[in-house]
């Protein structure tokens, strides 16, 4: 399910802090992260609740709240530090991470999960901007790639705190070592409000990451081996920051099962990207 807002209607528009919703509790509110762009793929600003319409399993819903750029961000980074990410690629990753953390606002938090065969959490979610830099400076790429395990851990860390959650996954290869089945993580994606933006190098485009990005409303980016990773990281953060957060309390739909979502914007030429649905129950 989406992050269930158990008591939060009261906190609307301020913060979504201190929610510890569970799957077993009833879904009382649903949040949908929506990217709206114009024909040139630039974010459309200034939209209000009146500009949006949303259908949950085909049933029109009353939108309670639309927020834009008001909620702090949890930026999770899940980085592949396997053997193949050595040398220049690691240097690019360090530079890109530094560029990204420099763009974070006060109140935003970041976390770093690294994975080779082993998955590690060198930086839990916090406002500490130096942790990611220090962890990457100390990193020695080795072993194989537990991509699915790493993404699973990244999603767990990202969704477990307050604010809007972005998970940026960088990998230059494909899974060679995970235990967790990719289907379980995709299922988790259906029930989570973490938006996943994978960044892969050309040629390594795992179906799993593509599907996860699509399920969570994110977008997969492919970069050239010598491409400007920092620019890609900044662009993703900028895009995520300029998304709208729609909140509604589902009505006239059964709470269990898969809920297909259709989000529309009443502006001509507007393009909408949001998760295709969520798992209730």
């Amino acid at each position, binding site marked *: 399910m989406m992050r269930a807002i158990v008591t939060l209607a009261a906190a609307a528009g301020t913060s979504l802090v201190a929610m510890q919703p*569970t799957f077993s509790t009833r879904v009382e509110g649903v949040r949908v992260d929506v990217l709206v762009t114009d024909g040139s793929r630039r974010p459309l600003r200034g939209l209000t609740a009146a500009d949006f319409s949303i259908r949950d399993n085909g049933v029109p819903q009353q939108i309670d709240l639309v927020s834009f750029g008001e909620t702090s961000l949890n930026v999770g980074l899940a980085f592949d530090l396997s053997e193949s990410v050595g040398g220049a690629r690691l240097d690019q990753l360090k530079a890109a991470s530094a560029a990204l953390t420099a763009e974070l606002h006060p109140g935003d938090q970041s976390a770093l999960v690294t994975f080779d065969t082993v998955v*590690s959490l060198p930086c839990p979610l916090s406002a500490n901007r130096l942790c990611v830099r220090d962890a990457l400076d100390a990193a020695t790429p080795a072993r194989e790639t537990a991509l699915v395990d790493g993404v699973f851990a990244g999603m767990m860390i990202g969704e477990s705190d307050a604010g809007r959650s972005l998970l940026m996954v960088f990998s230059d290869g*494909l899974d*060679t*070592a995970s235990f967790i089945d990719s289907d379980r993580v995709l299922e988790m994606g259906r029930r989570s409000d973490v938006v996943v933006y994978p960044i892969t190098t050309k040629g390594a485009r795992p179906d799993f990451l593509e599907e996860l990005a699509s399920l969570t409303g994110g977008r997969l980016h492919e970069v050239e081996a010598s491409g400007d990773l920092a620019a890609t990281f900044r662009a993703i953060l900028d895009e995520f920051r300029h998304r709208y957060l729609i909140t509604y309390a589902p009505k006239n739909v059964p709470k269990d099962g898969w809920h297909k979502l259709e989000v529309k914007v009443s502006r001509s030429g507007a393009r909408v990207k949001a998760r295709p649905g969520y798992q209730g129950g």
Partner: protein
Amino acid sequence: MRLLAVALAVALSEAPSNERAMGMLRDWVRFVDEHTAGETDAALDSLTAWTFDDLELMQAYVEALAEVPLNTQTRDARRRQITGIDLAEIKERTKDLQRRGDVDRFRKRAVILHTDAAILGAAPVVVDAPVPRQQRPAWARGEPEARVDVKSFDGRVDRFERANPNWQYSMSLLESLPAAPRRDPFVARWYRAVGAYFANERSYADAVRHFERALLVVPDDPLVLYGEACLQETLGAPRIQNYVRVTTLPNGLVIRDVSSPQTHLRRAESLLRKALAADSHFVEANLRLGRVLTQLKRYEEAFPYLQAAIADSRDRTVTYYAHLFSGDAALALGRLPDSRLSYEIAVALYPDSQASRLGLAAALRAAGDRPAALAAMARTLTKPAASRDSDDPWWDYYLGDATNVERLIQELWEPLRSRKP
């Protein structure tokens, strides 16, 4: 027809002896006699000084001497290249071996000599990426093609190596051992041990050919069936499938022997069922059949095999795997308390294991308990990565039978260390 046959016979008997090959064959007999199984000695060094081309030239001579059956066209064609004069001398040498009274022991020691040459001998022969026949100049298209294997790490092509012909020698020489009234048990022991060696080396190209031959020679041996099942399971696993899917080799080359995951997993299933038909208490076969069925998304079917493995296992790692896979199957079916319990037992068996803790976190999270899920992962995720290499048996699961490789190879060497029985 008659005239042609006569002419051919004359031509053969008049063909000159290949003195170099015959000299090498005499040396080879000496190497077999002098080599101590499992040791890098002078005999082994002398053999490994032969180039791969030398070995390929000599294979027909060695096969003739050991009386390897001419049951393949390739072998038959090779044998035809030996002149009549040389064949006559080889027959005399074979009779000498028979007079010694230890011809089968000699053949086994020859198998071990070539096995040791492959395992302990010279460094592999690294080559350029081969050019497919159709892309070669016309004059080069008829040249024989040596098999070339691609070596990779972490999903990346590392280098190309020429396949080691010593393995072909060993497999051919095994066929010279008596097959009736029953196959010499050394044959099955060799196939199991070397299969485990290939698994340990992750040398899947060799392993595929190895088990193809094994199924012809020892089709009912449960341990050999199990070894091939492990190989098929690995070929169907994401680690191999992902690599093959995105790897582009130079010169338009393609990776052979890897089919769809379902194809490999179904082959593994069939092999494991045969192994279990021969030995229903084969714990590892029950475990792997359970795992293969979960990979085929036949979760309900998997449980009895995993339960059987748990009931019969006396090995902590096997028990760990069985609980790990039961946890995954239960999670897939939405049986969250069962999944949680299985993962908790796996965690208790290997408290620092990543797979069990991530699995437990997934079960807890699916049940709605995020704080507990995070706590379950915390212990392993916050431990320094450098100290975690041996924390989780899962990381060795796809090595299959390789965990036994040292013992199996020692058991192969031990009875053949000396020339005398």
